[in-house]
């Protein structure tokens, strides 16, 4: 059998080629879109071939480890530029290139007529490259390169409309881009420190064992147990386990990239980017890389139960906060943004509980249906000429048939309604929390699930049902073109059937249950949980009830009280609690007052007092001025009269001669 390991190098190579072509060769919109889409589709095909190669490989390793070259080699610090392909990477690359390809094609329609389409597609391809490096790196440093690369592309694409001073709902794209970048830097500091700690304690950054110059070096994941009992002395703060410290630092990185409490504030503002970007980067792929990171470093987190507990706490808190915030938003994309944060909290809580497969399962299904929802919202925004405020929409059901039914499928999948994809993955997480008798977490997650269903019901009611609330918007509304409709249909099919990936054990001994568990077994060895039918019934009933309740309230009961520019009726009943949810419980306000303003004050002090007065005033201008004044004093000596100079010569000569003559 021919070894097909080289195929995995093609996976990131195609988008890289597409990026380079778009940057250096292509100048026309149509060519740019086609090349970019083709690159990602080819990459997707490479993934399929690579999975075939993985299944049929001769060695029993269950992973392909392809070292392309020695990347960094300084003393004992050796980092190979190596790509890894194992079942976990396989499902991630499938999601990235699959959903990514669909979104690329959709973008051809969405970005048509934009001022900078070629640049847009180039960045989109670059993002795919970086994301693939993130999930395929065989060491933490290469993962970090991808991690930073996706952050860069996120920055570039949020700021795609950098020349617009404001996009709905009043966000400045360039500021939102900077915010995303800066907030992510905070998390990246944790990543860097974690890498340093791993290298200093375990001597390597590669995940698994490597053959270097004939000798086998173990990867750090295989050595996690060796250092599990090592302690780190923090002086007056006591001691902390090394592994716990590393996990906490990694978690800091996760909270940045995956938008968890307390660093989630950048994601709602990231909606200033074009909607396909929100779908690809800020819903389906990039923000899930934190979940991937925890799943990949499973060995570390399992060696530190306290860190894992903290992960669960962060996840549940995020899920609750964001789900309540999503209730009170008016902007289509902001609802989805908070919903994304909340679902990411679900995944993080899942991997923290040790339900790695369930977390990855939810990551995959969420990637599909959230991309569908974002693309659907893009279709609505496109069809209503940049209307994002749901108070101006309403009654779009008959004008946008395809968008309507695909969006409904996405909403039901997100709400966790049987039999759509979200039901299976969400239920597995809740079931796991119940099974390990962590009832607080289980109840919180069920509550989040009910809230999710409620705000999705509210959203579809506001957009598609009731009567149109804005005459002008209503008259211009039209369904989007075929190139935007077909991606929606494909993703809608995905949102229906994605649950098949990991169904519970089927009755009557039928095959097909827990496929994902089986597939991921070599990486995430984990017992498939039993299916808790009463619990599933309860959660589904709750979700269905909330969805219907949200829909009924906003499509019928409260429909007449929703006016453009007016507060939500919920504000009337809940007052400041509603307001708090609308501003996502004031994290932005807190950062504004606790960090940004003091920082600005310090910057102003440094600029005016330290720099302008001390450094410029005393050091630079002071010295120059002092010498100037001294020179001013003695410049009179140079009179220009030759005879005066001659007299001074003479006096000098007389003095010298007298000195030597009479000493």
């Amino acid at each position, binding site marked *: 059998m021919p070894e097909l390991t080289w195929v995995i190098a093609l996976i990131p190579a195609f988008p890289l080629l597409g990026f380079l072509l778009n940057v250096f060769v292509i100048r026309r919109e149509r060519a740019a879109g086609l090349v970019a889409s083709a690159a990602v589709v080819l990459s997707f095909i490479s993934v399929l071939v690579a999975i075939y190669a993985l299944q049929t490989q001769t060695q029993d390793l269950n992973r392909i480890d392809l070292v392309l070259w020695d990347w960094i080699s300084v003393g004992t610090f050796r980092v190979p530029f190596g790509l890894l392909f194992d079942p976990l990477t396989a499902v991630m690359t499938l999601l990235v290139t699959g959903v990514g390809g669909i979104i690329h094609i959709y973008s051809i329609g969405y970005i048509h007529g934009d001022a900078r389409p070629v640049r847009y597609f180039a960045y989109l391809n670059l993002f795919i490259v970086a994301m693939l490096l993130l999930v395929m790196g065989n060491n933490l440093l290469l993962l970090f390169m991808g991690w930073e690369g996706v952050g860069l592309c996120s920055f570039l694409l949020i700021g795609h409309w950098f020349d617009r001073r404001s996009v709905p709902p009043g966000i400045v794209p360039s500021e939102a881009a900077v915010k995303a970048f800066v907030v992510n830097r905070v998390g990246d500091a944790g990543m860097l420190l974690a890498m340093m700690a791993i290298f200093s304690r375990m001597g390597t950054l590669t995940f698994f064992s490597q053959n270097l110059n004939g000798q086998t070096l173990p990867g750090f994941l295989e050595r996690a147990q060796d250092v599990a009992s090592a302690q780190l002395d923090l002086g007056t703060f006591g001691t902390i386990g090394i592994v716990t410290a590393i996990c906490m630092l990694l978690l800091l990185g996760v909270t940045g990239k995956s938008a968890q409490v307390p660093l989630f504030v950048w994601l709602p503002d990231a909606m200033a980017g074009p909607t396909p970007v929100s779908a690809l980067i800020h819903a389906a792929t990039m923000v899930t890389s934190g979940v991937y990171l925890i799943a990949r470093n499973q060995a570390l987190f399992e060696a530190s139960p306290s860190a894992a507990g903290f992960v669960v706490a962060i996840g549940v808190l995020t899920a609750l906060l964001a789900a309540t915030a999503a209730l009170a938003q008016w902007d289509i994309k902001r609802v989805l943004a908070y919903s994304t944060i909340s679902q990411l909290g679900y995944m993080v809580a899942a991997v923290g509980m040790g339900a790695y497969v369930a977390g990855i399962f939810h990551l995959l299904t969420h990637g599909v249906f959230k991309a569908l929802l974002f693309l659907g919202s893009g279709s609505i925004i496109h069809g209503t000429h940049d209307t994002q405020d749901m108070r101006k929409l309403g009654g779009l059901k008959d004008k946008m048939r395809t968008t309507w039914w695909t969006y409904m499928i996405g909403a039901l999948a997100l709400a966790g309604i049987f039999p759509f994809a979200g039901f299976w993955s969400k239920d597995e997480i809740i079931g796991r929390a119940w099974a390990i008798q962590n009832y607080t977490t289980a109840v919180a997650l069920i509550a989040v699930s009910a809230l999710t269903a409620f705000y999705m019901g509210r959203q579809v009611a506001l957009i598609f049902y009731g009567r149109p609330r804005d005459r002008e918007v209503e008259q211009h509304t039209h369904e989007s073109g075929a190139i935007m409709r077909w991606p929606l249909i494909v993703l809608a099919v995905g949102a229906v059937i994605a649950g098949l990936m990991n169904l519970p054990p089927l009755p009557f001994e039928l095959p097909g249950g827990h496929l994902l568990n089986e597939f991921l077994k070599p990486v995430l060895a984990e017992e498939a949980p039993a299916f808790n039918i009463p619990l599933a019934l309860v959660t589904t009933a709750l979700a269905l009830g909330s969805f219907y309740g949200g829909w009924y309230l906003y499509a019928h009961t409260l429909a007449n009280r929703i006016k453009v520019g007016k507060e939500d009726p919920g504000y009337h009943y809940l007052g400041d609690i509603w307001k708090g949810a609308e501003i996502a419980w004031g994290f932005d306000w807190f950062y504004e007052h606790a960090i940004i303003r003091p920082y600005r004050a310090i910057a102003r002090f440094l600029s005016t007092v330290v720099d302008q007065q001390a450094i410029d005033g005393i050091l630079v201008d002071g010295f120059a001025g002092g010498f100037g004044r001294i020179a001013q004093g003695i410049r*009179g000596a*140079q*009179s*220009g*009269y*030759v*005879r005066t100079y*001659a007299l001074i010569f*003479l006096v000098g000569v007389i003095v010298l001669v007298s000195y030597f003559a009479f000493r």
Partner: protein
Amino acid sequence: MVPTSYFILLSGVLFTLGVLGVLVRRNALVVFMSIELMLNSANLALVTFAQARQSLGGQILVFFVITVAAAEVAVGLALLVAIFGTKRTTDIDEISSLKG
């Protein structure tokens, strides 16, 4: 034979005249002539001491002084002509544009 001290005295008088000429006169030509006077007073002193000490060194040095003086005058006069061409004057107090 005239005593050596007379020559030295004459040399000193000539030198003093030269210095005074440089210091008090404003005509650049006269200043030049005064400088020549100082050089020649020095020549006189050199020759006198050479004669008194029966040594040729002093006399040879005089030839060098004369040569250098000739070169100096050539340069000086050329400068003077150039200055007169632009300033229409040889008054050295008028040529003071390099003052601080």
